[in-house]
Protein backbone atom coordinates (compact mmCIF):
# COMPACT_ATOMS: atom_id res chain seq x y z
CA UNK A 1 0.00 0.00 0.00
CA UNK A 2 1.25 3.48 -0.82
CA UNK A 3 -0.63 5.39 1.89
CA UNK A 4 -0.30 4.73 5.63
CA UNK A 5 -2.79 2.25 7.05
CA UNK A 6 -4.02 4.69 9.66
CA UNK A 7 -3.72 8.37 10.50
CA UNK A 8 -3.70 8.82 14.27
CA UNK A 9 -3.74 12.56 14.87
CA UNK A 10 -4.22 12.82 18.63
CA UNK A 11 -3.71 16.59 18.77
CA UNK A 12 -6.12 17.28 15.95
CA UNK A 13 -8.62 14.69 17.21
CA UNK A 14 -8.73 12.80 13.94
CA UNK A 15 -8.40 9.07 13.38
CA UNK A 16 -8.55 7.74 9.84
CA UNK A 17 -8.30 4.20 8.51
CA UNK A 18 -7.38 3.54 4.91
CA UNK A 19 -10.21 1.66 3.20
CA UNK A 20 -7.65 -0.30 1.24
CA UNK A 21 -6.87 -2.20 4.47
CA UNK A 22 -10.28 -3.84 3.96
CA UNK A 23 -9.77 -4.77 0.32
CA UNK A 24 -6.10 -5.41 -0.32
CA UNK A 25 -4.81 -8.93 -0.96
CA UNK A 26 -1.41 -7.81 0.31
CA UNK A 27 -2.90 -6.68 3.63
CA UNK A 28 -4.89 -9.92 3.87
CA UNK A 29 -1.66 -11.92 3.54
CA UNK A 30 0.11 -9.77 6.12
CA UNK A 31 -2.75 -10.29 8.53
CA UNK A 32 -2.53 -14.02 8.01
CA UNK A 33 1.19 -14.09 8.75
CA UNK A 34 1.52 -11.35 11.35
CA UNK A 35 -1.77 -11.47 13.19
CA UNK A 36 -3.45 -14.84 12.81
CA UNK A 37 -0.20 -16.81 13.09
CA UNK A 38 1.12 -14.77 16.03
CA UNK A 39 -1.83 -13.86 18.23
CA UNK A 40 -3.77 -15.96 20.68
CA UNK A 41 -6.97 -17.11 18.97
CA UNK A 42 -10.08 -18.39 20.70
CA UNK A 43 -10.64 -22.11 20.25
CA UNK A 44 -13.47 -23.04 22.59
CA UNK A 45 -14.83 -23.14 26.10
CA UNK A 46 -14.09 -25.81 28.67
CA UNK A 47 -17.81 -26.55 29.03
CA UNK A 48 -17.78 -27.97 25.51
CA UNK A 49 -15.59 -30.82 26.75
CA UNK A 50 -17.36 -31.91 29.91
CA UNK A 51 -16.33 -35.58 29.86
CA UNK A 52 -13.21 -37.52 29.02
CA UNK A 53 -12.99 -38.32 25.28
CA UNK A 54 -15.32 -35.47 24.29
CA UNK A 55 -14.18 -33.61 21.20
CA UNK A 56 -15.09 -30.65 19.01
CA UNK A 57 -13.60 -30.29 15.54
CA UNK A 58 -13.29 -26.64 14.67
CA UNK A 59 -11.71 -24.44 12.03
CA UNK A 60 -9.65 -21.58 13.44
CA UNK A 61 -8.18 -19.08 11.01
CA UNK A 62 -8.58 -21.61 8.20
CA UNK A 63 -6.84 -24.47 10.02
CA UNK A 64 -8.65 -27.60 11.17
CA UNK A 65 -8.19 -28.14 14.88
CA UNK A 66 -9.35 -30.92 17.19
CA UNK A 67 -10.29 -29.57 20.62
CA UNK A 68 -10.33 -32.72 22.68
CA UNK A 69 -10.37 -33.94 26.25
CA UNK A 70 -8.25 -37.07 26.12
CA UNK A 71 -8.90 -40.38 27.85
CA UNK A 72 -6.34 -39.05 30.36
CA UNK A 73 -8.64 -36.05 31.03
CA UNK A 74 -6.11 -33.60 29.59
CA UNK A 75 -7.51 -30.99 27.21
CA UNK A 76 -5.51 -30.67 24.00
CA UNK A 77 -5.56 -28.81 20.73
CA UNK A 78 -4.32 -31.06 17.93
CA UNK A 79 -4.07 -30.31 14.26
CA UNK A 80 -6.85 -32.35 12.69
CA UNK A 81 -4.45 -33.41 9.99
CA UNK A 82 -3.05 -36.88 9.40
CA UNK A 83 0.75 -36.93 9.88
CA UNK A 84 0.90 -39.51 7.10
CA UNK A 85 -0.47 -37.67 4.06
CA UNK A 86 -2.40 -34.69 5.38
CA UNK A 87 -6.02 -35.76 5.19
CA UNK A 88 -8.51 -34.50 7.79
CA UNK A 89 -8.63 -37.18 10.47
CA UNK A 90 -11.90 -36.40 12.27
CA UNK A 91 -14.70 -35.29 10.00
CA UNK A 92 -17.48 -35.11 12.60
CA UNK A 93 -18.13 -31.77 14.28
CA UNK A 94 -18.40 -33.05 17.83
CA UNK A 95 -18.95 -36.13 19.88
CA UNK A 96 -17.14 -38.66 22.04
CA UNK A 97 -14.37 -40.84 20.69
CA UNK A 98 -11.50 -42.79 22.23
CA UNK A 99 -9.75 -42.97 18.87
CA UNK A 100 -9.82 -41.22 15.53
CA UNK A 101 -9.21 -43.10 12.31
CA UNK A 102 -8.02 -41.39 9.17
CA UNK A 103 -10.16 -42.47 6.24
CA UNK A 104 -7.32 -42.43 3.73
CA UNK A 105 -4.95 -45.21 4.82
CA UNK A 106 -6.65 -46.14 8.06
CA UNK A 107 -4.14 -44.85 10.59
CA UNK A 108 -5.71 -44.84 14.04
CA UNK A 109 -4.88 -42.28 16.73
CA UNK A 110 -5.70 -42.27 20.42
CA UNK A 111 -7.54 -39.14 21.49
CA UNK A 112 -4.29 -38.00 23.09
CA UNK A 113 -2.86 -37.72 19.58
CA UNK A 114 -0.66 -40.80 19.82
CA UNK A 115 -0.60 -43.19 16.84
CA UNK A 116 -2.30 -46.38 18.05
CA UNK A 117 -2.51 -48.52 14.95
CA UNK A 118 -0.63 -48.46 11.71
CA UNK A 119 -1.97 -50.72 8.98
CA UNK A 120 0.80 -52.66 7.25
CA UNK A 121 3.10 -51.95 10.17
CA UNK A 122 5.51 -54.72 9.10
CA UNK A 123 6.50 -52.73 6.06
CA UNK A 124 7.71 -49.85 8.21
CA UNK A 125 10.99 -49.64 10.08
CA UNK A 126 10.91 -51.03 13.62
CA UNK A 127 10.58 -47.87 15.67
CA UNK A 128 8.43 -45.99 13.15
CA UNK A 129 5.27 -46.05 15.25
CA UNK A 130 7.01 -44.93 18.40
CA UNK A 131 8.40 -41.77 16.84
CA UNK A 132 6.71 -38.52 17.76
CA UNK A 133 6.45 -37.61 14.08
CA UNK A 134 3.78 -40.21 13.48
CA UNK A 135 1.44 -38.70 16.09
CA UNK A 136 -1.16 -36.00 15.53
CA UNK A 137 0.67 -32.69 15.88
CA UNK A 138 -0.31 -30.49 18.81
CA UNK A 139 -0.95 -26.82 18.12
CA UNK A 140 2.22 -25.07 19.39
CA UNK A 141 0.45 -23.34 22.29
CA UNK A 142 -2.82 -23.94 24.14
CA UNK A 143 -3.72 -22.00 27.29
CA UNK A 144 -6.91 -21.06 29.04
CA UNK A 145 -8.24 -18.25 31.13
CA UNK A 146 -11.54 -18.43 33.06
CA UNK A 147 -12.53 -21.46 30.97
CA UNK A 148 -11.86 -19.77 27.62
CA UNK A 149 -9.29 -21.80 25.67
CA UNK A 150 -7.00 -20.07 23.21
CA UNK A 151 -4.40 -21.40 20.79
CA UNK A 152 -1.41 -19.82 19.15
CA UNK A 153 0.43 -21.10 16.08
CA UNK A 154 3.63 -19.42 17.22
CA UNK A 155 5.33 -21.34 20.04
CA UNK A 156 7.25 -18.24 21.20
CA UNK A 157 4.17 -16.13 21.93
CA UNK A 158 3.90 -14.45 25.34
CA UNK A 159 1.81 -16.27 27.97
CA UNK A 160 -1.95 -15.94 27.43
CA UNK A 161 -2.44 -14.06 30.70
CA UNK A 162 0.05 -11.38 29.67
CA UNK A 163 -1.51 -11.15 26.23
CA UNK A 164 -5.04 -10.75 27.59
CA UNK A 165 -3.96 -7.72 29.66
CA UNK A 166 -6.99 -5.79 30.92
CA UNK A 167 -9.51 -8.09 29.24
CA UNK A 168 -8.91 -10.70 31.95
CA UNK A 169 -10.91 -8.66 34.42
CA UNK A 170 -13.88 -8.76 32.06
CA UNK A 171 -13.59 -12.50 31.45
CA UNK A 172 -13.59 -12.81 35.25
CA UNK A 173 -16.85 -10.85 35.31
CA UNK A 174 -18.38 -13.45 32.97
CA UNK A 175 -17.04 -16.37 34.98
CA UNK A 176 -18.27 -14.81 38.24
CA UNK A 177 -21.91 -14.72 37.13
CA UNK A 178 -22.58 -18.02 38.84
CA UNK A 179 -21.07 -20.22 41.51
CA UNK A 180 -21.87 -23.25 39.31
CA UNK A 181 -19.88 -21.91 36.37
CA UNK A 182 -20.74 -20.93 32.83
CA UNK A 183 -21.39 -23.08 29.78
CA UNK A 184 -21.80 -22.88 26.05
CA UNK A 185 -25.40 -23.75 25.16
CA UNK A 186 -25.88 -26.25 22.31
CA UNK A 187 -26.63 -24.90 18.86
CA UNK A 188 -24.04 -22.88 16.97
CA UNK A 189 -24.85 -19.98 14.72
CA UNK A 190 -22.57 -20.62 11.78
CA UNK A 191 -22.58 -18.08 9.02
CA UNK A 192 -20.44 -16.11 6.67
CA UNK A 193 -20.48 -12.45 5.76
CA UNK A 194 -19.30 -11.01 2.48
CA UNK A 195 -17.26 -8.30 4.14
CA UNK A 196 -13.81 -7.84 5.62
CA UNK A 197 -13.44 -9.33 9.11
CA UNK A 198 -12.34 -6.02 10.66
CA UNK A 199 -15.76 -4.59 9.87
CA UNK A 200 -17.24 -7.11 12.30
CA UNK A 201 -14.66 -6.17 14.93
CA UNK A 202 -15.76 -2.55 14.70
CA UNK A 203 -19.44 -3.41 14.57
CA UNK A 204 -19.28 -5.67 17.63
CA UNK A 205 -18.16 -2.84 19.90
CA UNK A 206 -19.96 0.01 18.16
CA UNK A 207 -22.21 1.84 20.59
CA UNK A 208 -22.92 4.57 18.05
CA UNK A 209 -24.84 2.62 15.40
CA UNK A 210 -27.70 1.18 17.45
CA UNK A 211 -30.19 3.98 17.06
CA UNK A 212 -29.95 4.01 13.29
CA UNK A 213 -29.02 0.45 12.31
CA UNK A 214 -31.23 -1.15 14.96
CA UNK A 215 -34.19 1.21 14.82
CA UNK A 216 -36.59 -1.71 14.27
CA UNK A 217 -35.19 -3.64 17.23
CA UNK A 218 -35.57 -0.64 19.52
CA UNK A 219 -39.12 -0.15 18.17
CA UNK A 220 -39.80 -3.79 18.95
CA UNK A 221 -38.63 -3.41 22.54
CA UNK A 222 -40.75 -0.33 22.97
CA UNK A 223 -43.81 -2.00 21.42
CA UNK A 224 -43.52 -5.06 23.61
CA UNK A 225 -45.20 -4.51 26.92
CA UNK A 226 -42.92 -4.73 29.88
CA UNK A 227 -39.75 -5.48 27.94
CA UNK A 228 -37.89 -2.42 29.23
CA UNK A 229 -36.98 -0.78 32.49
CA UNK A 230 -36.51 2.98 32.87
CA UNK A 231 -32.72 2.59 32.80
CA UNK A 232 -31.04 4.86 30.27
CA UNK A 233 -28.34 3.80 27.81
CA UNK A 234 -25.20 5.32 29.32
CA UNK A 235 -21.64 4.21 29.90
CA UNK A 236 -18.01 4.37 28.91
CA UNK A 237 -15.43 2.88 26.60
CA UNK A 238 -12.14 1.43 27.86
CA UNK A 239 -8.88 0.54 26.16
CA UNK A 240 -7.78 -2.73 27.80
CA UNK A 241 -4.31 -2.86 26.27
CA UNK A 242 -2.84 -5.07 23.49
CA UNK A 243 -5.68 -4.11 21.16
CA UNK A 244 -8.45 -5.32 23.46
CA UNK A 245 -11.25 -2.94 24.34
CA UNK A 246 -14.67 -2.86 25.96
CA UNK A 247 -17.70 -0.64 26.27
CA UNK A 248 -19.53 -0.90 29.56
CA UNK A 249 -22.98 0.64 29.92
CA UNK A 250 -26.36 0.45 31.53
CA UNK A 251 -29.32 -0.39 29.29
CA UNK A 252 -33.08 -0.80 29.65
CA UNK A 253 -33.38 -4.44 28.55
CA UNK A 254 -33.69 -7.48 30.81
CA UNK A 255 -30.64 -9.51 31.82
CA UNK A 256 -30.86 -13.10 33.10
CA UNK A 257 -28.05 -12.13 35.52
CA UNK A 258 -29.67 -10.00 36.82
CA UNK A 259 -31.87 -7.13 35.66
CA UNK A 260 -35.58 -7.73 35.92
CA UNK A 261 -38.09 -6.38 33.41
CA UNK A 262 -41.87 -6.25 34.04
CA UNK A 263 -42.53 -8.83 31.31
CA UNK A 264 -40.95 -11.48 33.54
CA UNK A 265 -43.73 -11.09 36.10
CA UNK A 266 -43.71 -11.40 39.87
CA UNK A 267 -42.32 -14.94 39.89
CA UNK A 268 -39.57 -13.77 37.60
CA UNK A 269 -38.85 -10.90 39.95
CA UNK A 270 -38.43 -13.30 42.86
CA UNK A 271 -36.00 -15.39 40.90
CA UNK A 272 -33.98 -12.44 39.56
CA UNK A 273 -33.86 -11.01 43.11
CA UNK A 274 -32.51 -14.33 44.35
CA UNK A 275 -29.85 -14.33 41.64
CA UNK A 276 -28.89 -10.79 42.59
CA UNK A 277 -28.77 -11.57 46.31
CA UNK A 278 -26.63 -14.64 45.71
CA UNK A 279 -24.22 -12.45 43.74
CA UNK A 280 -24.02 -9.85 46.51
CA UNK A 281 -23.31 -12.60 49.05
CA UNK A 282 -20.58 -14.14 46.93
CA UNK A 283 -18.78 -11.17 45.33
CA UNK A 284 -19.91 -8.14 47.35
CA UNK A 285 -22.38 -5.38 46.55
CA UNK A 286 -20.17 -3.34 44.24
CA UNK A 287 -19.09 -6.18 41.96
CA UNK A 288 -22.60 -7.64 42.03
CA UNK A 289 -24.02 -4.37 40.76
CA UNK A 290 -21.46 -4.29 37.96
CA UNK A 291 -22.08 -7.90 36.95
CA UNK A 292 -25.85 -7.70 37.12
CA UNK A 293 -26.74 -4.30 35.77
CA UNK A 294 -23.94 -3.35 33.38
CA UNK A 295 -23.66 -4.53 29.78
CA UNK A 296 -20.33 -5.18 28.16
CA UNK A 297 -19.28 -5.48 24.52
CA UNK A 298 -15.69 -6.62 24.40
CA UNK A 299 -13.23 -7.35 21.62
CA UNK A 300 -10.24 -9.49 22.46
CA UNK A 301 -7.69 -8.83 19.75
CA UNK A 302 -7.90 -9.93 17.04
CA UNK A 303 -11.13 -11.87 16.61
CA UNK A 304 -12.99 -12.82 19.77
CA UNK A 305 -16.07 -10.91 20.78
CA UNK A 306 -17.68 -11.53 24.15
CA UNK A 307 -20.84 -9.51 24.46
CA UNK A 308 -22.56 -9.70 27.81
CA UNK A 309 -25.75 -7.84 26.96
CA UNK A 310 -29.37 -9.14 27.04
CA UNK A 311 -27.70 -12.55 26.77
CA UNK A 312 -24.07 -13.57 26.46
CA UNK A 313 -22.72 -14.14 22.99
CA UNK A 314 -19.29 -15.55 22.29
CA UNK A 315 -18.43 -14.89 18.69
CA UNK A 316 -15.30 -15.59 16.72
CA UNK A 317 -14.53 -15.11 13.07
CA UNK A 318 -11.69 -15.12 10.61
CA UNK A 319 -11.12 -13.91 7.08
CA UNK A 320 -11.32 -16.27 4.13
CA UNK A 321 -10.41 -13.51 1.66
CA UNK A 322 -10.16 -9.71 1.90
CA UNK A 323 -13.92 -9.47 1.40
CA UNK A 324 -15.34 -12.50 3.17
CA UNK A 325 -15.30 -14.04 6.63
CA UNK A 326 -16.51 -17.09 8.51
CA UNK A 327 -18.40 -16.43 11.73
CA UNK A 328 -19.24 -18.78 14.61
CA UNK A 329 -21.59 -17.51 17.29
CA UNK A 330 -22.33 -19.29 20.57
CA UNK A 331 -24.70 -18.53 23.42
CA UNK A 332 -23.29 -18.79 26.92
CA UNK A 333 -25.41 -19.42 29.99
CA UNK A 334 -25.22 -20.21 33.66
CA UNK A 335 -24.73 -23.89 34.49
CA UNK A 336 -27.87 -25.23 36.14
CA UNK A 337 -30.00 -22.10 35.71
CA UNK A 338 -33.75 -22.68 35.86
CA UNK A 339 -35.63 -23.67 32.71
CA UNK A 340 -37.44 -20.36 32.93
CA UNK A 341 -34.23 -18.33 32.95
CA UNK A 342 -32.63 -20.43 30.23
CA UNK A 343 -35.66 -19.91 28.02
CA UNK A 344 -35.62 -16.14 28.49
CA UNK A 345 -31.88 -16.09 27.93
CA UNK A 346 -32.28 -17.87 24.60
CA UNK A 347 -35.24 -15.74 23.68
CA UNK A 348 -33.31 -12.55 24.50
CA UNK A 349 -30.40 -13.83 22.48
CA UNK A 350 -32.12 -14.77 19.30
CA UNK A 351 -34.51 -11.86 19.07
CA UNK A 352 -31.52 -9.54 18.86
CA UNK A 353 -28.45 -11.53 17.89
CA UNK A 354 -27.75 -13.89 15.09
CA UNK A 355 -28.80 -14.47 11.51
CA UNK A 356 -32.52 -14.72 12.26
CA UNK A 357 -32.71 -11.98 14.88
CA UNK A 358 -34.16 -8.49 14.65
CA UNK A 359 -30.74 -6.82 14.64
CA UNK A 360 -27.86 -8.89 13.24
CA UNK A 361 -29.29 -9.08 9.68
CA UNK A 362 -29.16 -5.28 9.57
CA UNK A 363 -25.56 -5.33 10.81
CA UNK A 364 -24.73 -7.77 8.03
CA UNK A 365 -26.39 -5.47 5.51
CA UNK A 366 -24.37 -2.51 6.84
CA UNK A 367 -21.08 -4.42 6.71
CA UNK A 368 -21.69 -5.69 3.19
CA UNK A 369 -22.67 -2.20 2.05
CA UNK A 370 -19.44 -0.80 3.54
CA UNK A 371 -17.42 -3.44 1.76
CA UNK A 372 -19.19 -2.44 -1.41
CA UNK A 373 -18.32 1.21 -0.80
CA UNK A 374 -14.66 0.35 -0.34
CA UNK A 375 -14.48 -0.44 -4.05
CA UNK A 376 -14.16 3.32 -4.48
CA UNK A 377 -11.19 3.46 -2.10
CA UNK A 378 -8.92 4.96 -4.75
CA UNK A 379 -10.99 8.15 -4.78
CA UNK A 380 -12.78 7.93 -1.43
CA UNK A 381 -9.90 6.52 0.60
CA UNK A 382 -10.58 7.06 4.32
CA UNK A 383 -12.83 5.72 7.06
CA UNK A 384 -13.29 7.95 10.07
CA UNK A 385 -13.33 6.73 13.67
CA UNK A 386 -12.61 9.98 15.47
CA UNK A 387 -15.74 10.13 17.61
CA UNK A 388 -14.93 11.11 21.18
CA UNK A 389 -11.21 11.35 20.48
CA UNK A 390 -10.79 14.52 22.51
CA UNK A 391 -13.18 13.48 25.28
CA UNK A 392 -11.59 13.16 28.73
CA UNK A 393 -13.75 10.10 29.38
CA UNK A 394 -14.97 8.51 26.15
CA UNK A 395 -18.61 7.48 26.17
CA UNK A 396 -19.79 3.97 25.23
CA UNK A 397 -21.04 5.42 21.95
CA UNK A 398 -17.70 7.00 21.09
CA UNK A 399 -15.09 5.12 19.09
CA UNK A 400 -12.19 4.70 21.51
CA UNK A 401 -12.58 0.93 21.47
CA UNK A 402 -12.13 0.79 17.70
CA UNK A 403 -9.09 3.02 17.84
CA UNK A 404 -7.58 0.67 20.44
CA UNK A 405 -8.04 -2.23 18.03
CA UNK A 406 -6.64 -0.34 15.04
CA UNK A 407 -3.57 0.94 16.86
CA UNK A 408 -2.61 -2.62 17.75
CA UNK A 409 -3.48 -3.87 14.28
CA UNK A 410 -1.31 -1.16 12.75
CA UNK A 411 1.56 -1.91 15.10
CA UNK A 412 1.56 -5.59 14.18
CA UNK A 413 1.09 -5.18 10.44
CA UNK A 414 3.57 -2.30 10.12
CA UNK A 415 6.32 -4.21 11.91
CA UNK A 416 6.67 -6.20 8.75
CA UNK A 417 7.53 -3.13 6.71
CA UNK A 418 10.13 -1.91 9.16
CA UNK A 419 11.91 -5.23 8.85
Amino acid at each position, binding site marked *: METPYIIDDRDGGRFKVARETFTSQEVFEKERDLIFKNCWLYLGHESELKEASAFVARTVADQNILFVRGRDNVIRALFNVCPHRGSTVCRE*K*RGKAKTFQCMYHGWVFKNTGELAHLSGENAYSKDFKEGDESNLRPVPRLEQYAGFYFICFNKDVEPLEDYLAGSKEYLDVIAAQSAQGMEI*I*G*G*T*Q*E*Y*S*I*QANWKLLVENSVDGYHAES*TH*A*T*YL*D*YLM*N*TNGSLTATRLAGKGYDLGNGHAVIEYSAPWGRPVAQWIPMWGEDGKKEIDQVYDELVGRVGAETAEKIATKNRNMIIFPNLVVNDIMAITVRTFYPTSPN*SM*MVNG*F*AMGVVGES*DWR*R*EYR*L*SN*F*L*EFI*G*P*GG*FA*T*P*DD*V*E*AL*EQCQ*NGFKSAANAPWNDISKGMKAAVPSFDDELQMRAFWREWNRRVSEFEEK
Partner: protein
Amino acid sequence: MASESDLQEMFQYFRIQKLLNEEAKCLDDWRLQDWLSLYTEDASYYVPPTDIAAAEADPTKHLYYIADNRGRMEERVTRLEKKTCHAEFPRSKVQHVVSNIVVNDSLENGRLSVSASFVIYRSKNGSTDMFMGSYLYELADIEGQLRICKKACSLALDGLRPQAKISIIL
Protein backbone atom coordinates in the same frame (compact mmCIF):
# COMPACT_ATOMS: atom_id res chain seq x y z
CA MET B 1 -62.84 -47.26 -8.15
CA ALA B 2 -61.70 -44.93 -5.43
CA SER B 3 -63.34 -45.57 -2.10
CA GLU B 4 -64.98 -42.89 0.03
CA SER B 5 -61.94 -42.81 2.32
CA ASP B 6 -59.59 -42.48 -0.66
CA LEU B 7 -61.60 -39.51 -1.82
CA GLN B 8 -61.51 -38.01 1.65
CA GLU B 9 -57.76 -38.48 1.80
CA MET B 10 -57.36 -36.86 -1.60
CA PHE B 11 -59.55 -33.96 -0.56
CA GLN B 12 -57.58 -33.48 2.63
CA TYR B 13 -54.31 -33.61 0.68
CA PHE B 14 -55.70 -31.04 -1.72
CA ARG B 15 -56.64 -28.70 1.15
CA ILE B 16 -53.16 -29.00 2.66
CA GLN B 17 -51.45 -28.42 -0.67
CA LYS B 18 -53.63 -25.40 -1.27
CA LEU B 19 -52.76 -23.93 2.14
CA LEU B 20 -49.01 -24.47 1.69
CA ASN B 21 -49.10 -22.97 -1.80
CA GLU B 22 -51.07 -20.01 -0.52
CA GLU B 23 -48.51 -19.45 2.23
CA ALA B 24 -45.65 -19.56 -0.27
CA LYS B 25 -47.45 -17.10 -2.52
CA CYS B 26 -48.06 -14.67 0.37
CA LEU B 27 -44.37 -14.74 1.23
CA ASP B 28 -43.21 -14.34 -2.37
CA ASP B 29 -45.59 -11.40 -2.85
CA TRP B 30 -44.55 -9.83 0.48
CA ARG B 31 -48.19 -9.93 1.65
CA LEU B 32 -47.09 -10.52 5.20
CA GLN B 33 -50.34 -9.65 6.97
CA ASP B 34 -52.05 -12.23 4.76
CA TRP B 35 -49.31 -14.67 5.74
CA LEU B 36 -50.02 -14.06 9.42
CA SER B 37 -53.74 -14.66 8.85
CA LEU B 38 -52.96 -18.26 7.88
CA TYR B 39 -51.70 -18.90 11.42
CA THR B 40 -53.61 -19.55 14.63
CA GLU B 41 -53.49 -17.19 17.60
CA ASP B 42 -51.16 -19.56 19.49
CA ALA B 43 -48.91 -20.20 16.51
CA SER B 44 -45.14 -20.59 16.51
CA TYR B 45 -42.43 -20.47 13.87
CA TYR B 46 -39.02 -22.09 14.26
CA VAL B 47 -35.72 -22.37 12.46
CA PRO B 48 -33.53 -24.79 14.46
CA PRO B 49 -29.72 -24.70 14.40
CA THR B 50 -27.95 -26.60 11.64
CA ASP B 51 -25.56 -28.46 13.94
CA ILE B 52 -28.16 -30.24 16.08
CA ALA B 53 -30.16 -33.19 14.71
CA ALA B 54 -33.74 -32.14 13.92
CA ALA B 55 -35.19 -34.81 16.21
CA GLU B 56 -33.16 -33.57 19.19
CA ALA B 57 -33.49 -29.81 18.72
CA ASP B 58 -35.48 -28.04 21.44
CA PRO B 59 -35.94 -24.26 21.50
CA THR B 60 -35.88 -24.20 25.31
CA LYS B 61 -32.50 -25.96 25.42
CA HIS B 62 -30.70 -25.05 22.20
CA LEU B 63 -29.85 -21.81 20.47
CA TYR B 64 -32.14 -21.56 17.44
CA TYR B 65 -31.86 -19.20 14.51
CA ILE B 66 -35.53 -18.31 14.99
CA ALA B 67 -38.01 -19.30 17.72
CA ASP B 68 -41.04 -17.02 17.40
CA ASN B 69 -44.30 -17.23 19.25
CA ARG B 70 -47.29 -15.48 17.71
CA GLY B 71 -46.34 -12.17 19.32
CA ARG B 72 -42.85 -12.22 17.87
CA MET B 73 -44.16 -13.39 14.49
CA GLU B 74 -46.31 -10.26 14.42
CA GLU B 75 -43.34 -8.12 15.43
CA ARG B 76 -41.25 -9.80 12.73
CA VAL B 77 -43.86 -8.78 10.17
CA THR B 78 -44.05 -5.25 11.59
CA ARG B 79 -40.29 -5.01 11.30
CA LEU B 80 -40.23 -6.37 7.74
CA GLU B 81 -42.76 -3.75 6.70
CA LYS B 82 -40.51 -0.87 7.76
CA LYS B 83 -37.94 0.94 5.66
CA THR B 84 -35.64 0.74 8.66
CA CYS B 85 -35.54 -3.03 8.29
CA HIS B 86 -32.32 -2.42 6.41
CA ALA B 87 -31.62 -6.05 5.51
CA GLU B 88 -34.86 -6.10 3.52
CA PHE B 89 -34.87 -2.57 2.18
CA PRO B 90 -35.18 -2.39 -0.71
CA ARG B 91 -36.97 -5.70 -0.51
CA SER B 92 -35.33 -8.78 -1.89
CA LYS B 93 -37.00 -10.91 -4.54
CA VAL B 94 -38.12 -14.16 -3.04
CA GLN B 95 -39.28 -17.42 -4.56
CA HIS B 96 -40.53 -20.29 -2.42
CA VAL B 97 -40.85 -23.71 -4.03
CA VAL B 98 -42.76 -26.19 -1.85
CA SER B 99 -43.02 -29.85 -2.73
CA ASN B 100 -42.94 -33.47 -1.48
CA ILE B 101 -45.88 -32.96 0.87
CA VAL B 102 -46.38 -35.91 3.20
CA VAL B 103 -49.29 -36.18 5.62
CA ASN B 104 -48.02 -37.85 8.77
CA ASP B 105 -50.08 -39.61 11.43
CA SER B 106 -52.45 -37.29 13.27
CA LEU B 107 -51.19 -35.87 16.55
CA GLU B 108 -52.75 -36.60 19.94
CA ASN B 109 -54.22 -33.11 20.13
CA GLY B 110 -56.16 -33.80 16.92
CA ARG B 111 -53.87 -31.65 14.83
CA LEU B 112 -52.44 -32.74 11.52
CA SER B 113 -48.75 -33.28 11.15
CA VAL B 114 -47.50 -32.49 7.67
CA SER B 115 -43.99 -32.43 6.24
CA ALA B 116 -42.87 -30.84 3.01
CA SER B 117 -39.67 -29.89 1.23
CA PHE B 118 -38.71 -26.37 0.36
CA VAL B 119 -36.25 -24.53 -1.79
CA ILE B 120 -36.22 -20.76 -1.36
CA TYR B 121 -34.31 -18.30 -3.50
CA ARG B 122 -33.61 -14.80 -2.30
CA SER B 123 -32.04 -12.20 -4.58
CA LYS B 124 -30.70 -8.83 -3.53
CA ASN B 125 -27.66 -6.66 -4.23
CA GLY B 126 -26.75 -8.73 -7.25
CA SER B 127 -26.47 -12.03 -5.47
CA THR B 128 -28.82 -14.94 -4.85
CA ASP B 129 -28.99 -17.00 -1.70
CA MET B 130 -30.63 -20.38 -1.60
CA PHE B 131 -32.24 -21.99 1.42
CA MET B 132 -33.34 -25.60 1.26
CA GLY B 133 -34.72 -28.00 3.78
CA SER B 134 -37.91 -29.47 5.15
CA TYR B 135 -40.93 -28.01 6.82
CA LEU B 136 -42.70 -29.75 9.65
CA TYR B 137 -46.18 -28.31 10.13
CA GLU B 138 -48.89 -28.70 12.69
CA LEU B 139 -52.22 -27.79 11.16
CA ALA B 140 -55.63 -27.37 12.78
CA ASP B 141 -59.06 -27.52 11.19
CA ILE B 142 -60.83 -24.46 12.59
CA GLU B 143 -64.44 -23.98 11.52
CA GLY B 144 -63.81 -25.64 8.20
CA GLN B 145 -60.57 -23.73 7.55
CA LEU B 146 -57.12 -25.25 7.77
CA ARG B 147 -54.78 -23.07 9.80
CA ILE B 148 -51.11 -23.35 10.72
CA CYS B 149 -50.36 -23.80 14.44
CA LYS B 150 -46.68 -24.48 14.12
CA LYS B 151 -44.04 -24.45 11.44
CA ALA B 152 -40.48 -25.67 11.94
CA CYS B 153 -38.04 -25.15 9.07
CA SER B 154 -35.10 -27.53 9.25
CA LEU B 155 -32.40 -26.30 6.94
CA ALA B 156 -30.57 -28.90 4.87
CA LEU B 157 -27.53 -26.64 5.03
CA ASP B 158 -24.16 -26.94 6.72
CA GLY B 159 -24.48 -23.56 8.44
CA LEU B 160 -25.56 -20.32 6.79
CA ARG B 161 -22.68 -20.16 4.40
CA PRO B 162 -22.74 -18.03 2.37
CA GLN B 163 -26.26 -16.80 3.21
CA ALA B 164 -25.21 -14.93 6.39
CA LYS B 165 -28.75 -14.26 7.53
CA ILE B 166 -32.37 -15.32 7.44
CA SER B 167 -33.88 -11.91 6.91
CA ILE B 168 -36.89 -13.25 5.00
CA ILE B 169 -39.55 -15.63 6.30
CA LEU B 170 -38.75 -19.18 5.25
